[in-house]
């Protein structure tokens, strides 16, 4: 289903930022289900370093919005153990770059317990984290590591590109009985969008959204690059008709929506901020060439970070950061 349709179907919407949409989703889930609680470094009184959880501690108190020591392995491990024993933690990993500290609990416990135990446990844990360059935060606070989680069996990964998707995916993650990582790009927290206010609005895990219909070329994008691709598409409207898809869910991945689009357009650009080699793009390329090989009229183009870390200095950062211009160049190359 297209994102448009979801929003049109919604009885009421409100304009808000991605940050507000996530916060709204979290607040609604905290209200809906007493088993749900938030935990993380400075998510409480401080309101979260990027202010996503701001106000929730005041509203829900110490038990349900918990500040942790600086112990990602400890609290993400605890969230894993807690999820196996009847509660539904939502952990904030302040920056996705800190994932390494807690990777063991993620890869060997959270991702594997259900399977190793022959299905003897549920694992309703959500991990929210921020990604991406663009704010001069340098190499250790600007990474995009979602390919790791999308690749690792037993984990689900979402990466919203719009405010509506941000709310809907956050809520779906919290309601899921599987571990879900929500990758929030830090540069779009202020991006505005219409968001359904319905408390039952969720975006199903595993469904992409056609954000803009087109005929000549498909752009499949994630996070910040969804908005930039939409702008690029608009700016090219006189010359080429661009379809833009927000992947939304990296795993499971909605192969059908993407392949259907390519069957129509015959051309594909994949835009995602992860480093290019072995990045998220490659999987989308592979599935499309598997599902729509004979529809492809040109090599699929990949737009991502060119295998460097995010450098500090603005001209360097701008150099390696993929953006709408890169998408434009790729479109021009194959149309």
């Amino acid at each position, binding site marked *: 289903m297209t994102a448009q349709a979801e929003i049109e179907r919604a009885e009421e919407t409100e304009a808000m930022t991605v940050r507000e949409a996530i916060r709204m989703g979290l607040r609604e889930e905290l209200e809906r289900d007493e088993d749900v609680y938030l935990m993380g470094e400075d998510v409480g009184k401080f309101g979260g370093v990027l202010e996503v959880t701001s106000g929730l501690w005041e509203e829900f108190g110490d038990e349900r919005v918990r500040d942790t020591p600086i112990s990602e*392995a*400890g609290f993400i*491990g*605890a969230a*894993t153990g807690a999820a196996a024993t009847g509660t539904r933690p939502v952990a904030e990993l302040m920056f996705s770059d800190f994932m390494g500290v807690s990777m063991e609990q993620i890869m060997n416990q959270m991702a594997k317990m*259900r399977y190793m135990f022959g*299905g003897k446990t549920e694992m309703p844990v959500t991990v929210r984290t921020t990604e991406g360059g663009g704010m001069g935060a340098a190499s250790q606070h600007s990474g995009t590591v979602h390919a790791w989680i999308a690749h690792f069996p*037993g984990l689900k990964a979402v990466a919203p590109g719009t405010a509506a998707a941000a709310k809907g995916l956050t809520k779906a993650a919290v309601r899921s009985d599987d571990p879900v990582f929500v990758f929030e790009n830090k540069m779009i927290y202020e991006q505005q969008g219409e968001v359904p206010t319905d408390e039952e609005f969720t975006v199903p895990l595993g469904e992409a959204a056609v954000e803009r219909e087109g005929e000549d070329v498909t752009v499949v994008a994630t996070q910040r690059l969804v908005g930039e691709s939409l702008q690029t598409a608009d700016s090219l409207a006189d010359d080429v008709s661009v379809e833009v898809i927000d992947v939304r869910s990296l795993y499971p991945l909605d192969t059908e929506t993407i392949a259907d689009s390519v069957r129509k357009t015959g051309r594909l650009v994949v835009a995602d901020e992860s480093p290019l080699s072995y990045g998220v793009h490659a999987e989308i390329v592979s599935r499309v060439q598997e599902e729509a090989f004979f529809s492809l009229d040109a090599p699929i183009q990949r737009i991502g970070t060119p295998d460097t870390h995010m450098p500090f200095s603005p001209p360097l950062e701008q150099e390696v950061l993929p953006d709408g211009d890169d998408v434009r160049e790729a479109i021009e190359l194959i149309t």
Partner: protein
Amino acid sequence: MADYTLETEEGRREALRRMLTIREFDSTAGDYFADGEIPGFVHLYIGEEAVGVGACAALEPDDYIASTHRGHGHCIAKGLDPKLMMAELFGKQDGYCNGKGGSMHIADVDSGMLGANGIVGAGPPLATGAALSIDYDDREQVAVGFLGDGAVAQGQVHEAINLAATWDLPAVFVVENNRYGEGTPVEEQHNVDDLSDTAGAYDIPGVTVDGMDVTAVAEAVEEARKRARDGDGPTIVEAETYRYRGHYEGDEQPYRDEDEIEKWKEQDPIDRFSELLVDRGELTEEELKELRDEIEAEIEEAVEYAQDAPLPDPSEAYEDMFAEMPPEIERFASQARADGGSLGGDRR
């Protein structure tokens, strides 16, 4: 009420039974591993029975434990069924994990057993997490994290204990100091004399007890449990013990000599406890012999059960990754289900 407690005659006998069961289970598992009927790795608990049984004797049935790679003893101490355990070791469909887990991942969350664990030091964060659920829901349980001496060097253990201590969670950490992490002696892994000294880093009690004495372990864990339930946070209980067998079956043990093993065997936890019960007049040698025979038969039965149980159908490999199977896996699963008839054959 606890499953069994060392405070009653009946409970003591149950404790002895479980220790004997662990030993019999594990030496049998060792045999079938040597024969090639059990695949993978097995780490035996023989020599350390007093630790698991002492600790679990201090627990209530719905308390949680998070175990280690050397988990069979914890399972039996916690009341898991040797039949289903053995079936799991044999990789059978009727095992605790339907054959998906094996020795290193036996689990039964409903019985409060949060899994053996192939990752050294991974249990304590899970125990802290279970304690968090308990605390969040105001339940009356505690969560025990078992770990080896080697695991004390793991960062996630430090984080888990610090978190539990800072939040006063109802957790207990039981360090099984069996003197070695694989082939490396404890002295080469840590600088402290007693591993319970690490408790000072969290301002929580740390005690070192004779891990070959089931009563000493039970008493220490009971006190720790009480403290945890009173809202005073975790305790570290170090139990000094010894494994008689190699690190895993097949280990040639270049790192230690027979003398050392023999010396520890003089402290054998089963001998000591059964002698105590005999001395106290709670048990006759006759009864002990009967108990041993009974258990031998029980484990033999477990092996038969395991041998007779069906292997899982190959298509089972695709189950249990998620609450619902995603399309990525479904295409393989449906293929395997379709192949089922042809490949299946005699699945035993």
